[in-house]
């Protein structure tokens, strides 16, 4: 055999004629266009058992399913968007932060009934408490008429501030307004009317006897 007619088997390395399709030694299929210089030693890394079988075309890295356009994900609703500017997180050494527990709680994260505006305007519950305290004192200190009136006005002002600014303690602000209103009504009644003469002595007698 001439050298240009020789084909070396890729499995056992035996020499075969160029016209042969199968190796005379091991029976593996010979590559049709393999030359003597290229095929010198069998490559042990090749899959021996795959020889002779029709080789499938290499599948692409991705599988194209349809020709349709890529579907973009839906935008995140505003209710569950997190305002990272106001977030103050304490990051621990292992990289986790205190908000992992919050994120794992879906009710805390996806509570769409609480608008972000209330979170920004909240706080300052002391104003509502001060309003209620002033309202109570205006009731208790009715004996000191003008002092009671000043306390009632202060309670009304603080209550209105709480409601307008949307601070915490809305109920206390309303209670402060109510008590202050009662204090002012008592003050106005006492200033507006005078004790009726026919009943004054009887009233004094009853009140002194009871209290």
């Amino acid at each position, binding site marked *: 055999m001439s050298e240009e007619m020789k084909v070396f088997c890729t499995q056992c390395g035996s020499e075969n004629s160029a016209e042969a399709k199968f190796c005379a030694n091991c029976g593996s299929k010979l590559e049709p266009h393999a030359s003597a210089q290229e095929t010198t030693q069998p490559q042990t890394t090749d899959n021996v058992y795959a020889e002779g079988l029709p080789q499938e075309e290499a599948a692409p890295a991705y599988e194209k399913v349809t020709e349709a356009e890529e579907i973009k994900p839906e935008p995140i609703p505003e209710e569950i968007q997190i305002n990272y500017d106001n977030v*103050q997180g304490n990051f621990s050494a292992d990289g986790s932060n205190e908000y992992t527990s919050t994120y794992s709680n879906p009710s805390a994260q996806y509570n769409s009934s609480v608008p972000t505006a209330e979170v920004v305007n909240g*706080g300052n*519950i*002391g104003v*509502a*408490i001060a309003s*209620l*305290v002033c*309202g*109570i004192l205006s*009731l*208790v*200190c*009715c*004996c*000191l*008429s003008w002092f009671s009136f000043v306390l009632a006005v202060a309670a009304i002002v603080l209550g209105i501030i709480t409601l307008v600014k949307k601070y915490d*303690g809305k*109920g*206390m602000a309303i*209670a402060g307004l109510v*008590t202050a209103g*009662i204090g002012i009504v*008592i003050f106005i*009644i*006492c*200033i507006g*009317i*005078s*004790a009726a003469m026919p*009943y*004054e002595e*009887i*009233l*004094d007698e*009853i*009140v002194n006897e*009871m*209290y």
Partner: protein
Amino acid sequence: MKCIKRDGKYRVDELFYLIGKIIFIPFCLFGFWFAGSGFEAYGSHITCAIRDLCGLPCPGCGGTRAFYYLFQGNIRESLRLNATVLYGVGAYLHFMLVMFWRKRFNRNGAEREIQIQYYLYGAVIVILVQWLVKIFNIIHRLVLT
């Protein structure tokens, strides 16, 4: 003050507890002094302007005497004159005891903030109820007379 500020926000119950600790001793000293000689020297001259004008008591009427009888030990008379004083002192002592207990013996409970507004709501209710009871009794006696 670190004790009244947690997570960047002031806790109202801590603030009231601090105020309560500050005024506890002066409050007790004043009470015993007032029950001893203070009421006879200064308290008995206080009169209600509203009662002087229209003859009917105001919501705070009887408060001074109620305070006097409370530190005298006469709880029943104090309750009859003005229940608000007894409620106020009771609420103050209750709040202070609860805060002290939580801080000293129940560390987990100290994390929960005591809602001060419920004490205030109770005060409003007590004031209005005792005032309405007084008004009703006076009017009832007036009608019968």
